[in-house]
C-alpha cells in the first residue's frame, strides 16, 4: 500500500474529477428513486462545504439539501449572549471566549461592542489560554464563556480538570454546551407534525462527523431504528460529502435504513472514550435548553455537576444575569433557517440590511452560519 502524506488528506478529498464521478453515480442512482428525497446536513461545517464547492449544482433535481442548526454560535439565544455581555461588565472580570463569538449581537450589542466600551473581553483560539490569562492577572476573575457541541465540550472539561489539578483560584465557567442527537429528534418531531403544510420532511441525515469523533457514531443509532431515518456520518471535505450523499441515496434505492460511517478514517462507533469520560465527570444534562429558532429542546444542554458549582459563573453571578427570554429581530428569519424551514435568500434583509459586515441575525454572524455561507458562496449557486 502507498504511503500516506499529509497532502493526500487535503488534495485527494477535494479532487474535482472525483466529485464529478460521484455526481454521476448519484445521478444514476437517483433515477431509481420513487420520490425526491430531502437530506439534512445538520452541521454548519457541512453547509459550508456544500456551498463552497457548489455541490447543489452537482445534484440531480430529486435530491435536496436542507440546512440544519449545527452552528453553536447561531443557535445561541440572545439572552445567553446577554449573559456574556453582563459578565464582561462586572468588576475585575476578564471574559474569555472562542473567536466565533466576537460579533454575535445580543440585546445590548456584541462582545466586540462590550470591549469597545472598555470591558476586558478576550477571544482565544483554545480554552487552555485561560490558564495563562488567569496566572498573569491574579487579581481578576477569568470567566470562560464555553460554547459548542460534543466536539468542544471535552476541551472545556480538560480546562476545568486543570483548574482543579493546579488549584487555580480565579477561573470560572459559563456553560453553553449543547448536544446534537436531541436537537435532531426535536427537528423530526416538530416537522413531522407539520409535514403536510411544510412538505419538506427530513428523509435522511448527513451526520456531523467531528461530533462523532468524540461521541462515536453510536449516538445516531436511534434515527434509523426508531425514526426510520438513515444517517451517514460524513467528513467535511467535498469528496466526503459527495460519498456520504451517494451512500444515503443507495440506501433509499436498496430500501435500507441504516447508520453508516463514510468518515472511517477518523470516526468509530465508540468515539473517543477519554473525552466521553471527561464530559461525564464534569457535566450533567439540563432538562431544557432554549435554542434560537427552535425554542426549548429537552435534555439538549449541559451544565456543571453540582460538585463543581463553585466554578459555575451562572450560579455565582445569578443576581445580575438577566432571565427573560429575548426574541429575535422581527425581520430576521434565522429561526426558520435553523429549523431548515427556509433558505437564506428567502429572508427580506438577506444581503441588504443583513450581511457579514453588519449582521442582524446569528446565521450571518457566525463563520459557520447558513446565511454567511450563502452570502460568501451564493454566486456559485443558481436558484
Amino acid at each position, binding site marked *: *500500500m*502507498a504511503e*500516506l502524506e*499529509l*497532502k*493526500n*488528506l*487535503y488534495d*485527494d*478529498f477535494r*479532487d474535482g*474529477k*472525483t466529485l464529478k*464521478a*460521484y455526481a*454521476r*453515480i448519484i445521478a444514476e442512482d437517483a433515477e431509481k428513486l420513487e420520490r425526491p428525497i430531502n437530506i439534512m446536513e445538520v*452541521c*454548519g*461545517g457541512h453547509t459550508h462545504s456544500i456551498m463552497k464547492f457548489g455541490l447543489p449544482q452537482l445534484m440531480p433535481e430529486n435530491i435536496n439539501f436542507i440546512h440544519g442548526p*449545527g*452552528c*453553536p*454560535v447561531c443557535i445561541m439565544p440572545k439572552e445567553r449572549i446577554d449573559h456574556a455581555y453582563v459578565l464582561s461588565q462586572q468588576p475585575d472580570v476578564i471574559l474569555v471566549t*472562542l473567536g*466565533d463569538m466576537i460579533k454575535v449581537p445580543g440585546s445590548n450589542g456584541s462582545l466586540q461592542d462590550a470591549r469597545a466600551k472598555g470591558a476586558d473581553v478576550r477571544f482565544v*483560539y*483554545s*480554552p*487552555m*489560554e485561560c490558564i495563562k490569562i488567569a496566572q498573569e492577572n491574579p487579581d481578576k476573575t477569568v470567566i470562560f464563556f464555553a*460554547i*459548542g*457541541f460534543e*466536539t*468542544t465540550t*471535552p*476541551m472545556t472539561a*480538560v480546562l476545568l*480538570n*486543570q483548574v482543579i489539578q493546579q488549584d487555580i483560584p480565579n477561573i470560572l465557567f459559563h456553560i453553553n454546551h449543547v448536544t446534537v442527537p436531541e436537537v435532531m429528534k426535536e427537528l423530526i418531531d416538530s416537522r413531522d407534525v407539520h409535514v403536510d403544510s411544510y412538505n419538506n420532511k427530513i428523509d435522511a441525515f448527513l451526520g*456531523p462527523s*467531528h*461530533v462523532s*469523533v*468524540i461521541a462515536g457514531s453510536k449516538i445516531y443509532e436511534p434515527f434509523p431504528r426508531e425514526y426510520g431515518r438513515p444517517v451517514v456520518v460524513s467528513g*467535511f471535505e467535498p*469528496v466526503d460529502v459527495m*460519498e456520504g450523499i451517494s451512500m444515503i441515496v443507495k440506501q433509499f434505492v436498496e430500501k435500507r435504513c441504516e447508520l453508516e460511517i463514510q468518515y*472511517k*478514517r*477518523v470516526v468509530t462507533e465508540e468515539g*473517543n472514550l*477519554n*473525552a466521553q469520560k*471527561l464530559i461525564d465527570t464534569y457535566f450533567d444534562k439540563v432538562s431544557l435548553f432554549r435554542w434560537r429558532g427552535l425554542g426549548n429542546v429537552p435534555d439538549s444542554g449541559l451544565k456543571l455537576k453540582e460538585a463543581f458549582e463553585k466554578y459555575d459563573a451562572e450560579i455565582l453571578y445569578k443576581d445580575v444575569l438577566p432571565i427573560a427570554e429575548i426574541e429575535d429581530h422581527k425581520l430576521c428569519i434565522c429561526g426558520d433557517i435553523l429549523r431548515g424551514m427556509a433558505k437564506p435568500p428567502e429572508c427580506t434583509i438577506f444581503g441588504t440590511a443583513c450581511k457579514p459586515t453588519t449582521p442582524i441575525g446569528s446565521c450571518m454572524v*457566525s*463563520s*459557520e452560519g447558513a446565511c454567511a455561507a450563502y452570502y460568501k458562496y451564493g454566486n456559485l449557486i443558481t436558484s
Partner: protein
Amino acid sequence: MCLSIPSKVVKISEDKTMCTVDTMGVQRDANLMMMDDDDVKVGDYVLLHIGFVMNRIDEEEALASIDTYKEILEIMDEEERRRAILEDDECEARGEQYAEEIQS
C-alpha cells in the same frame, strides 16, 4: 467551530501532555490531554481542534478511501474511452466491429 484540521505529529513532550504538529508547513503546539498516553506517536496524522488533538487519523482507512476514488475514476475513464470510440467512429460497420471487440 467544529472544523478540525489534519496535521502530522512531529514531536511529543516528555510528559506526553503536549505535542508539536505540522499543518501543511505551519508548526504549532497541541494539547494531548484528551488522548491516552500511547494513542499518538511521532509521524501519526491527527485531527486538531481548538488547540487539542481530538483523534488519530487511521492511515489505512484514509488510503482505502483514496484507492476507492482512484478505482472509480479508472472505471469511469474506461467507460468514457469505450463510449468515445463508439461515438467517434463514423463508419457504422467498423463501429459495430469495434463495439463487438470492446464488448467481448
